[in-house]
């Protein structure tokens, strides 16, 4: 309670003090302080009065001296506020600033929350249409591949770590032989399927209420439909990719088994099937599929080298394999294909912007991923809520994928001293920054796979030369002169052809300079930890002789 009832001052004084205190509208403790001081003031002034009448008269005079009560209360409040300690002032100011910021953000956010996107094209339909590219269904290798996967028995546990056939004991070899023989129908189905000219994997429609695993279906689906769809499509894709991987290993085991049987033609056919499967997957579809395809091509290269290293062949077989592979890898550019990745980005735009019916619209909450400008400019745009409109966002995306395509086309050697810098148009989007590392790396992996294929063709030619002339060529130029290759095979990681050295009439070395862009005299590559790697960052990428 503010009022001191034990006070002996006249009622009118008490009322005046009460009014001052009431109008102060400030903290209780401060009000009590001021009240005590004012009461003391009046008590001191009235102490000398001997009669109540005198007291009354003096009290009226004193009250008059205080002037306007409201003004007094205001002046006291202001003065008391100034008396606050620094920490309290800082806290209050900070609170005010934060409050204002929150208010500002809420006001601006409300603009992002109002409105809804117009979904004209379904994501799954767009992907299926884009990947089919107008080809007839009968040209699609995927149904056959899928059938082969369904015919395949699961890989035995003993093969989980992918041991080499030659490292297995007799029992293991017998078990493997039984496994690959039992799965002949799967291999035959795969062999037939991959001969088709195209491959696309149709996605099933995603139910509207389907949720991503682990999200509880609350946050992500409502915030960004594209993210949800992307994850759900990956969920459809991954089991197939796993089966594809098992099928690949199983076929490679079949090849190792037939190599052991001395069946060159069958082993070469298996390698060729692997090449075709890898090529199908690497050249289209989602990035995940392409990466699996790239890995299969690398395995196919190794499998071919292994076969050629262990078995004698005839020129006809070599020539046929070479011709088949050349038809597969005739394109000069890497295979990385980003059409579907771009479709995802465009779906982000579709779901993240309103549609004014004229190709433009403003950003909604999920459109913030299309924020433009330099990264430092993001803050400015975020603070000002100045997001790009739909057209600008589309321009950013177009430019980003153009930049990537251009970058992927540059041979690793030609860009050895450069870093991938996006153009001003596309440097900016949060989307671009998030996607850039993965998409950039995808291009690198594709160059490696293409190099492997190049090396495979070269080894086939060398072997042909050896069969034809009974000796190895002195240089790779001899292959071109002999018509075994159209041109001398280029090393994408040096300024010349793949490095070839004839060691004897039967031995040779073939390698690329690798990612460090220097000739390490054929020293096999390792990763930074010194572990042996086909495409390690140190040393050379040696394709021949075959390294364990």
């Amino acid at each position: 309670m503010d009022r001191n009832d034990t006070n002996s001052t006249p009622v009118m004084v008490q009322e005046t003090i009460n009014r001052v205190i009431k109008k102060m509208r400030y903290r209780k403790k401060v009000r009590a302080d001021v009240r005590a001081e004012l009461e003391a003031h009046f008590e001191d002034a009235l102490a000398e009065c001997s009669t109540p009448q005198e007291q009354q008269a003096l009290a009226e005079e004193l009250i008059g001296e205080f002037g306007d009560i409201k003004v007094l209360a205001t002046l006291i409040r202001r003065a008391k506020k100034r008396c606050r300690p620094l920490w309290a002032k800082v806290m209050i100011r900070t609170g005010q600033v934060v409050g204002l910021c929150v208010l500002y953000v809420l006001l601006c956010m409300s603009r992002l929350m109002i409105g809804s996107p117009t979904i004209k094209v379904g994501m799954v339909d767009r992907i299926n249409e884009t990947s089919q590219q107008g080809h007839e269904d009968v040209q699609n290798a995927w149904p056959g591949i899928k059938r082969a996967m369904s015919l395949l028995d699961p890989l035995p546990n003993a093969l989980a770590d992918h041991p080499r056939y030659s490292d297995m004991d007799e029992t293991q070899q017998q078990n493997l032989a039984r496994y690959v023989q039992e799965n002949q129908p799967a291999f035959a189905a795969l062999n037939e399927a991959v001969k088709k000219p195209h491959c696309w994997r149709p996605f099933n429609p995603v139910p509207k209420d389907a949720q991503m695993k682990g999200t509880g279906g609350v946050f992500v689906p409502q915030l960004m439909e594209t993210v949800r769809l992307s994850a759900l499509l990956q969920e459809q894709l991954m089991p197939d990719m796993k089966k594809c991987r098992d099928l690949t290993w199983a076929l490679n085991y079949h090849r190792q088994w037939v190599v052991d049987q001395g069946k060159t033609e069958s082993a070469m056919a298996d390698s060729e099937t692997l090449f075709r499967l890898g090529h199908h997957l690497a050249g289209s579809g989602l990035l995940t599929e392409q990466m699996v395809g790239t890995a299969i091509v690398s395995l196919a290269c190794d499998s071919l080298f292994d076969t050629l290293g262990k078995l004698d062949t005839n020129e006809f077989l070599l020539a046929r394999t070479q011709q088949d592979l050349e038809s597969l890898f005739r394109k000069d550019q890497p295979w990385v294909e980003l059409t579907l990745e771009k479709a995802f980005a465009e779906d982000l735009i579709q779901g993240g912007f309103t549609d004014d019916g004229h190709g433009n619209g403003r950003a909604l909450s999920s459109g913030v991923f299309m924020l433009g400008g330099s990264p430092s400019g993001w803050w400015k745009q975020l603070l000002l809520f100045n997001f790009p409109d739909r057209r600008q966002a589309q321009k950013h995306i177009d430019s980003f994928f153009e930049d990537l395509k251009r970058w992927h086309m540059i041979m690793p050697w030609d860009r050895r001293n450069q870093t991938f810098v996006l153009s001003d148009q596309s440097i900016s989007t949060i989307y671009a920054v998030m996607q850039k590392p993965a998409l950039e790396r995808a291009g690198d992996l594709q160059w490696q796979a293409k190099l492997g294929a190049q090396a495979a063709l070269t080894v086939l030619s060398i072997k042909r030369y050896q069969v034809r002339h009974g000796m190895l060529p002195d240089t790779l130029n001899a292959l071109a002169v002999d018509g075994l290759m159209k041109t001398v095979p280029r090393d994408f990681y040096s300024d010349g052809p793949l490095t070839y050295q004839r060691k004897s009439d039967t031995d040779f070395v073939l390698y690329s300079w690798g990612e460090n862009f220097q000739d390490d005299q054929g020293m096999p590559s390792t990763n930074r930890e010194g572990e042996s790697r086909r495409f390690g960052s140190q040393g050379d990428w040696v394709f021949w002789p075959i390294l364990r």
Partner: protein
Amino acid sequence: MKFESQLLKGIAPVVVLEILSRGPMYGYELCQTIEKRSHDILCLGKGTLYPLLYNLEAKRLVSTEWQTAESGRKRRYYAITSKGTGELAKQKDQLKHLVNGLDLVFGGALSLA
């Protein structure tokens, strides 16, 4: 004689600091002392006094302390701080210059009066 409030407002802080420089005082006492020492020429309105004291406190020119008198009455005493002493000296110096300036303007009439 009553001063214009704006005129008094300008010199009120320095007057209060000057009085407090002679010893701590509570509000009413301070008011009485000013009137007495100025022979009732300077009479601060009570509505001005307390906000003024609180402002001086906010500027750390004065410090405050509650004390209980022998009569049992609690009073808030105001005392000048070292910062207040410095400010007083500065203000006094300025006031002196002001008076000199005014004196010159009025051709010595202020001194003679």
